[in-house]
C-alpha cells in the first residue's frame, strides 16, 4: 500500500476498517449506518478520499485517528 497516493491509501483504509469493524457487516451495511449511498462508499474505496473533513468524520465513526488513514 506504500506506493499508493494518500487519497488512495485513505480509500483502502476505509475498506479495511469496514471489513474489520464489529459495527458493520459489509459495505452495504456500513453505507446504511453511515447514512450514505452504497455507490458513494464504493467510490470512496475505489477512487480514494481527498476531503479532510470526510476522513476526520470516518476516523471518528470508527474510533481511530486521522493519521491511521495514511499508514
Amino acid at each position, binding site marked *: 500500500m506504500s506506493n499508493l497516493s*494518500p487519497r488512495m491509501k485513505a480509500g483502502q483504509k476505509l475498506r479495511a476498517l469496514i471489513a474489520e469493524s464489529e459495527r458493520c457487516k459489509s459495505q452495504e451495511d456500513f453505507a446504511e449506518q453511515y*447514512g450514505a*449511498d452504497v*455507490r458513494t462508499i464504493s*467510490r470512496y474505496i475505489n477512487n480514494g478520499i481527498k476531503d479532510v*473533513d470526510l*476522513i476526520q*468524520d470516518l476516523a471518528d465513526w470508527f474510533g481511530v485517528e486521522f493519521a491511521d488513514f495514511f499508514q
Partner: protein
Amino acid sequence: MAKSKKQQRQENAQITMFLDDCFERYSMKYEWFFAEYDGDNKPTVLPLFQDGVISEKILVRAAEILGMTPDEILSQNKEAALRWYKKYPFFAHLLHFHNLRVGSFHGEGFFTAHLMKAIFGENSCDYPERYDEAAIRTRMIEVLKNADSFLPGTYHEGAEILDFRYETEQFFSYPAIREMLESFFDIITRIKTLFFKAWKENLDEPEIMEYNFLVTFLDITDVLCCAPVYYTGLKRLVPIYREEGYRGDEEEFSELVLVKFFRRFKPWACKEFAENADLAQRYVSINPNAKNAMFEYGRLVKYFLCSFKWSDAEIDPYESPEDVFEQLGNMTMEELIRETDQDIIELQNYQETVNKTGVGELAGWTHIAVPKSSEELNGDGIYVEKLIRLGGVPSKGGVRINRSRENSLSGSERLNRILVHKNVLREASYE
C-alpha cells in the same frame, strides 16, 4: 347591519393575525405554505385577503393544513385553534424546547439581549458571541498544517482564507424531555393508526382534520415523489400502493412515507436525552435514522466544523452525483434518474442546493473539523461521549427501514412509480 369598509378591513386584519397565530402555535409559519417564488427564488407571500377579497382557495387549504374548518378560521374560533395543542402537550413543550435551544447558541446574556431588543429595538444591542472566532481560525490553520503532512495540498502556503465560517452545537438542559417525547410517541402512534385506518375505510370528519394536521406538522410526504400525503391524496394512493404489493400493515409505514419532521427535531440536543438510554432507544425505534443523526450531533458539539475558500482554490469538479449533474447539464430530474440510476434522495437534495445557491456556490469550499478546548466544551464532553455511544451501537435496537422492495426496482421502474404517485397527489390537491 352591513359592516363599513373600515370595519371589514379591521375584521380581515384580525382574521389574518388569527391565522398567523394558529401557525406559530405549532411552530410553523403561514408563509411556508402560501408563497410563490420568482426566478431568483425570492418568495412573495400570498395573502388570505387580496384587496379586501378573501381567497377561498387559501382559506380551504389553510383549514386543511391546520386541521380546522374554514368557518372556524373565519370566526376566529380559539378553542378550535387550540384543539391539537391541548390534545398533545408536545406542542407546548416544543416552543419552550426551541427557545432554550436557540438561547444555547449564544450562551449567557442571550435572553437579556433578547429582552433589550424587544424593548429598545433590533439595533439596540448585539447578541453575545459564545466563541472566539479569531482563536478558532488560528487553531484551524494548525489543524490544516497537520493534515497537510498526511494529505499534501491540504494547506495552501501563502494563500488567503476567504469566507471563513464555522458551525457547532452545544447541549442545553430540558428536564421535561421524557414528558415531551411521551406525547410525541402518542402523535406518531396516532398518525400511523389514522393512516392505516384510512387505508381500510373512510375516516370521519374529526379524524380527517387530525390526520391532515398531523401530515402538515410532521411533514409527511410520499417516499417516492416527496409530495405531502393529505387525506384525499392518501385515498387515491391506496389502490396504487396495493398494486405495488403493499398490504397496509403498520410496519410498512416507513416504506410508504417519509416523516420529514424527524430531520428538523433534535431531542438529543438536551443533556437529559443523552442520559436516558431507554428513552433514546424508544426514540430510535420510531426514527431509525436518529442513530446516525445523534452521532453527527455529538461531533458537532465536539468540534467547530469550519468552512472557507482558499484564495488560490481551483474549482474541483464534484464527483457523482454532482459531476453527473454537471456533465448532463440541463436534464430534468426524471431524465437524470433514468440516465444515471443515481440515488434519488441524494440527487434531489443536491438539486435543492443548486436551486438555492447555484453550482458555483458549492464548489471550491474546504471543510475541516477543529476540536473544541475543554473550556469551549464547557462540560459537554461527557454528553458527547454518551450520545456518540447511543448513536453508534447497532446491536442496541432501532428498527431497520425495509427498502428492499424499493431497492429492487430498476431506475426506470422507480421513475415510473414516482410519476404515478406525483400525478395522483397533484390531482388530489386540485380537488
